[in-house]
């Protein structure tokens, strides 16, 4: 090459060099191994060390899993079957799975929570995947009422009259909107409140006496196990996101009153441990509420968990809002979009997309935090595992129960995480 340069600068190629296969070290498994596992003496050592650790762990846990006893009535029976060899006793799951999943929900009614779970996925599908027909969203909107009725049962007129409150709000909004936009918002809030306070009760009892339809009522203290985690977790997740968005917007608002309410709320809730809020829900609220009011414990916990997650959510979304360039707001303004339209069409889609990892973090955190309700006497999976271990049959069993509970939580949290990664990929439009 240097020859050419020394002789002359001009150079014309007359024959093109044909493509050749790469050397063995540049392709296939050997290349992969070299690059990823043995790229130097240090990494090679680490690879070998890791292999050794994996081997030892498997050697220790493997036989314990392989020798599992699936059918036994108690831990002592397990031990008799194992006869001195090391082995797991997953018979406890076989024996008590229904309690871990449903708590003390009446066993002949198990179909109701199962159906509610299946319908939950049906309701979630159109929200999570935009490819599905938009009409399915009607079912998603109705699901809270269907889900409530399936789980708690009672008169069918109760959820229907609650639903009618929202309908009343919608009608009020449409009617008053022609007069004034702000008045319409007030009407949309006041109409359902008025309905629920004064008309829903009479409507419920009147309809129940005319047409007594409904399912067997199941009291909240029969709820337990994974059922309670899901009820609290799913409700908390679906309510905390919209509430968090409103709080984040409120915190950025120019209106001093709105802003200070949001700041105080967020800072207070974030500054207090969840467990104190749960104790407040279970104990203190009884002192404040008028005597004789029975305010469902699960409902109280849901409210507290939602508020707690919403405060975190608000800050996560505020981060997303802060990451948006000012030009986006200006472009939306310059096109004549009003505040809510700009938020809905321009700002939020981008801010939420940026915040997806943080939002999912909060969701997963919330879902796992539902296990804290054990401290206020609700029998979530952890609470039930304590109860099971307290029984004479299964005294002394630890690993198998916690592995089972952990696996259940893992499946849900991992699912949420995978979905968020799918969503991030789908929404990626910056082509960086």
């Amino acid at each position: 090459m240097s020859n050419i340069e020394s002789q002359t600068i001009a150079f014309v190629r007359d024959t093109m060099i044909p493509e050749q296969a790469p050397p063995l070290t540049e392709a296939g498994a050997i290349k992969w191994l070299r690059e990823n596992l043995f790229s130097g003496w240090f990494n090679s050592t680490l690879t070998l060390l890791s292999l050794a650790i994996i081997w030892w762990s498997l050697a220790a846990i493997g036989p314990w899993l392989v020798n599992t006893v699936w059918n036994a009535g108690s831990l002592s029976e397990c031990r008799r079957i194992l006869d001195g060899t090391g082995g797991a006793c997953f018979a406890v799951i076989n024996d008590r799975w229904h309690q871990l999943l449903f708590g003390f929900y009446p066993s002949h009614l198990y179909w109701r929570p199962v159906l509610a779970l299946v319908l939950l996925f049906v309701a979630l599908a159109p929200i999570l995947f935009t490819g599905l027909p938009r009409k399915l969203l009607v079912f998603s909107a109705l699901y809270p009422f269907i889900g409530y009725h399936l789980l708690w049962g009672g008169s069918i007129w109760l959820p229907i009259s609650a639903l009618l409150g929202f309908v009343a709000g919608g009608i009020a909004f449409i009617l008053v909107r022609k007069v004034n936009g702000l008045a319409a918002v007030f009407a949309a809030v006041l109409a359902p409140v008025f309905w629920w306070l004064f008309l829903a009760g009479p409507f419920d009892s009147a309809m129940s006496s005319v047409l007594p339809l409904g399912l067997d009522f199941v009291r909240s203290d029969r709820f337990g196990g994974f059922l309670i985690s899901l009820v609290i977790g799913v409700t908390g997740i679906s309510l905390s996101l919209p509430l968090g968005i409103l709080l984040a917007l409120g915190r950025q608002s120019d209106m001093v009153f709105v802003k200070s309410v949001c700041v105080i709320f967020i800072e207070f809730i974030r500054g207090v441990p969840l467990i104190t809020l749960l104790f407040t829900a279970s104990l203190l609220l009884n002192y404040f509420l008028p005597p004789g009011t029975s305010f469902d414990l699960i409902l109280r916990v849901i409210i507290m968990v939602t508020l707690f997650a919403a405060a975190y959510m608000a800050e996560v979304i505020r981060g997303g809002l802060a990451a948006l360039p000012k030009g986006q707001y200006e472009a939306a303004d310059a096109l004549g979009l009003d505040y809510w339209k700009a938020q809905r069409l321009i700002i939020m889609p981008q801010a939420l997309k940026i915040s997806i990892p943080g939002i999912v973090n909060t969701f997963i955190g919330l879902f796992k935090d539902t296990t804290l309700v054990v401290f206020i006497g609700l029998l979530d999976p952890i609470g039930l595992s304590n109860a099971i271990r307290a029984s004479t049959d299964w005294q002394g069993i630890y690993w198998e129960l916690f592995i089972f509970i952990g696996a259940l939580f893992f499946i849900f949290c991992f699912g949420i995480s995978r979905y968020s990664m799918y969503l991030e990929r789908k929404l990626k439009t910056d082509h960086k």
Partner: protein
Amino acid sequence: MTEPVVDIPVERTIDTSQMKVSDEVAIQITSMNKWYGTFHVLRDINMTVNQGERIVICGPSGSGKSTLIRCINRLEEHQSGQIIVDGTELTGDLKNIDKVRSEVGMVFQHFNLFPHLTILENCTLAPIWVRKTPKKEADEIAMHFLEKVKIPEQALKYPGQLSGGQQQRVAIARSLCMKPRIMLFDEPTSALDPEMIKEVLDTMIQLAEEGMTMLCVTHEMGFAQAVANRVIFMDQGQIVEQNEPREFFNNPKSERTQLFLSQILGH
């Protein structure tokens, strides 16, 4: 400075004598003042823009020229004086502000396209949500203007996939879809590579030829020479000099203007 100082990078010069300026007043600004905190950014601005006028505003950075045109669609709030756009006075009244904004298009230095929407969606968003145009009709309008800025084939791409010049032309098309009576340009070519400046200027010249009322903050003096019927020079928040372009460039009156012109045209 007597010899013509401007060499025009825009190849097409247009016959501005053909372009009618009507007597109808588009923008009327009377003794307008604006402060950022204690800093007096705009001082006693008085100007009238007639329908069909093409005005170029220039001046050193920090002279308040961007702030001035951002006041016209209330992206910035003025503290005293009066701004009347197309017969509507800009006050705190949100209804008036929205009305003015839907009549006034704006093109930004950094394009400010919406990155999560396709080019077509960028263009149809405001017609659909502000003007309540049916989607099909909005699509047709958008395609019409995308054709006009010569990028209809990019309609289904996202802004991130386009070059700077293409993005700025989309931004112009997006504003035009609202059928504005006035267009504001805030340094539309300052963030572009040299070879892309021309395509954007060509689009703007085309707009001028069609009689659009335009206010441009720009350093493209060739564009000013070719298109403007008035050049305004601002410094320290005040209008220092304004004149028709030939006179402005060949025979600047104020010392400040002479210095500015010699600095930007001197090499």
